[in-house]
């Protein structure tokens, strides 16, 4: 019984001391908190820090998504770019090596996709996968269809190539013909100068083809 009493007393004592220490500790905490509040004037700074960090993360994500879609966009963009700028000599560029530097990179891409992508698609497709393509070499016994398939591919390629080639050729030719009458006009001015000389020069003989009664 004594032991139980001793134990209970000790327990009570411990509890009492614990309560006292706990109370004193609470008082110290309260004092420390007050001190902290006094030392930190702007508690909002702590709040702003976590907000700015997650923002830059979503930006780089859409970039990789754009690239795979470019392939489909070019197949659509190729058609409008051809009539928009026929004077661009892209067809000549393939033949003439020095001209490409003058072209915009965008046009080069369009041209490359225009000429290279269609055959690339045919290559990628397994033979016979496109039954509507008579020019598919994989179709057995479709020899004529192979030629037909090449014709539509060559026609649009030749048309834009010929147009820009003819246009710049005609322009300098016209300019040359325009230059020709210039010296003729100058000759007329010379005659006027002769007349101008002549308030006192009217008596000077002037070139002429007489038609008098010989």
């Amino acid at each position: 019984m004594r032991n139980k009493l001793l134990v209970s007393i000790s327990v009570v004592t411990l509890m009492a001391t614990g309560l006292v220490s706990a109370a004193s500790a609470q008082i110290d905490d309260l004092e420390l908190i007050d001190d902290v509040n006094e030392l930190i004037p702007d508690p909002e700074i702590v709040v702003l820090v976590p907000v700015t960090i997650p923002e830059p993360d979503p930006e780089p994500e859409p970039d990789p998504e754009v690239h795979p879609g470019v392939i489909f966009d070019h197949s659509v963009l190729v058609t409008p770019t051809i009539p928009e700028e026929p004077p661009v000599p892209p067809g000549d560029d393939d033949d003439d090596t020095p001209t490409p530097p003058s072209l915009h990179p965008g046009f080069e891409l369009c041209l490359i996709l225009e000429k290279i992508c269609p055959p690339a698609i045919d290559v990628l497709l397994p033979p016979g996968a496109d039954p509507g393509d008579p020019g598919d070499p994989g179709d057995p016994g479709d020899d004529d269809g192979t030629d037909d398939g090449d014709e539509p591919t060559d026609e649009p390629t030749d048309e834009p190539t010929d147009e820009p080639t003819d246009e710049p050729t005609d322009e300098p030719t016209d300019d040359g013909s325009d230059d020709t009458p210039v010296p003729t006009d100058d000759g007329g001015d010379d005659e006027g100068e002769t007349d101008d000389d002549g308030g006192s020069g009217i008596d000077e003989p002037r070139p002429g083809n007489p038609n008098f009664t010989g």
Partner: protein
Amino acid sequence: MSTRPITTVTSTTGTSTSGRSTVAAVALLLALLASACNPFGGDAELQGEVYPTAPSSPGIANLYTASSTRAVVTDDHIVIYDSPDGDTLQTLPGATSFGTTRVMLVEAMAGDWIQVRLPTRPNHRLGWVRASDVTIETVEPVVHIDIEARTLTVVSGDEVVAQATVAVGTEDNPTPRGTFYVTDKLETPNPHGAYGPYALGLSGYSETLSEFAGGNGQIGIHGTNDPGSLGQAVSHGCIRLPNEVATWLADVLPLGTPVHIV
């Protein structure tokens, strides 16, 4: 009769081309008349070498020697009236068909009006122009052409400065007679052609040919590629003369120089 250089034009505005013309005239006259004070007297040697010998000219004493006056059109056209303050006869371009400034020989002056000889058909037609539309200048040399004698004589003042034998029109296409004047001085494209190196257009027209060689029958004084025709009546109305003389006349005779054909 002594010789002296020609003073071609005495302008009311002080304009004169006498300098170069005087030098040219002196040079040629020295060649023509070096040993002959009287060119009509017939230094046959000189005249025979330079120009065909001219027959005697009985009408020499009656040469027109008075100074003449020319009216130079100052605008791009000139209105011709039948009388002072009268009706309009016609309007002429300020330049001839050859592009030469329009010049007309003055016959009379009356106040602000000037009577001129018209360079149009019919021959010898007169008209009046406003003095404000022209510039008046004095022309000293005078040309006398004797059809019968087939001579051309240049007179300055009262002195004969040159004479040459010429070819004139045939009986079928005679050279018209009367007073005309120089309207054009042309350097031909072919000095060895039928007109020679120079041709002077006159204000007169053939009375038998309404057109000739694409022209309107205007008569002229010009050189020739047929020197053997000089002294004869072989032309269609023009006066042919040696190419050297044609060159000299083109140099010394101003526009408006009177040409009396008798």
